[in-house]
């Protein structure tokens, strides 16, 4: 399954997003991850990597992540990122926006 077909598929399942993100992150961090594992707990995710992650989600899933949605909690785990992507694709307003 290519990134292209993922982005263009009419319906994206949480499962397919999770699978793609796990592949991306495992290649980047050279570690094995689970969907609910907190990648930021150790505080070692760099600004560069954070940027890469945001851009990857935006380009792969054609969403714009701005303002309050950029908070770390949305990126802690593969599950949270999947929720963020699905919410943004559904066009619902940001949760917890001040």
């Amino acid at each position, binding site marked *: 399954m290519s990134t292209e077909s993922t982005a263009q598929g009419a319906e994206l399942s949480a499962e397919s997003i999770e699978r793609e993100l796990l592949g991306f992150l495992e290649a980047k*961090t*050279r*570690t094995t991850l689970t969907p609910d594992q907190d990648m*930021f707990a150790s505080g070692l995710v760099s*600004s*560069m990597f954070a940027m890469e992650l945001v851009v990857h989600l935006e380009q792969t899933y054609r969403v714009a992540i701005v303002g309050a949605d*950029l908070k*770390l909690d949305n990126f802690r785990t593969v599950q949270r990122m999947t929720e963020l992507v699905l919410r943004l694709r559904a066009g619902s307003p940001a949760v917890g926006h001040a």
Partner: protein
Amino acid sequence: MSDVPTTVKCLVWDLDNTLWQGTLSEGDTVRPPDGVRELIIELDSRGILQSVASKNDHDLAWAKLEELGLAKYFVLPRIGWGPKSDSVRDIAERLKFAHGTIAFVDDQPAERAEVSFHLPEVRCYAADQVPALADLPEFSPRNVTVDARRRRQMYQAGFRREEEQAAFRGPTEEFLRSLELDMRIGRATEEQLSRVEELTLRTSQMNATGVHYSDAALRELLADPGHEVLVTTMADRFGPHGAVGVMLLRTRPGVWHIKLLATSCRVVSFGAGAAILNWLIDQAARAGAHLVADFRPTERNRMMEIAYRFAGLGEESCACQDALPDAGADGLRRLHLVPAPREPHATIRISAPDLAADHRVAAPDPVH
């Protein structure tokens, strides 16, 4: 034209009958002419890198440079049998320097012509000009900063680091840990200020407001007890990274205001920006102060916004901001955080002044 010429950032040396007298491959006993050793050391101390483009057997020529005690002054030597224009181009590419900042010195007019033909911007000098090079304006940088004097070591450390990273097969986290990153945050000294000014000019990707502070403006703030001008330097087991970050902080009781945070792109991949913020948030929490950070989006600094947001700063309004001067109408945003103590960084050892102790909100006086 009275313009000062662009400063040379790297001088590429020919060896036979230029750096030394004689032809090594013909069995001559080669040695540098008077003054060449001193010139190499002088240019090195001015922060001008030096390299080699020579048609010679690599191992023999390099061994001779080592024997002469000069090898350590050269980065990315290109010793072989290919065209010198290829060597000079390679060196410029690896250093990410524009051709106009490269100089090439060779005794052979044909070699200089070959380099000039393919790389017209590279400045070529004949071997008999060597004694005069140090006095030329293009070899006399206006400002020799602390980092300039150890620029060559920083580049050499960088090349070793890159090689090791490329060869490293384990998790990124383990690689970062293996670097033994050491960060020092300190109050800026007069001597560091020129480098600080340079950082605010050059770090467009990691400058939170896009504002450039002049040397004079920073000097004034250095003397102001209400401001902290903090400079971050980094090193690891390969050597120094030099000054990599600058922060301008206004400290008021109850609120610390980050007016500028800029970090060098060279250390972005180590998480330097996040580490500095993590330290500052912890300090502010201990001082009982809220944190407010100025941010002005530019086309290039989105990475900085992400660093702030991932560190926990957000847009919620807070009464603490009433005490701050107006943000103005030119696109400046204020991000805010009520800080909580943070865990020390996982892969970077940090030493820093105890800002919290110096700026703690005084406990209320007992009633007399």
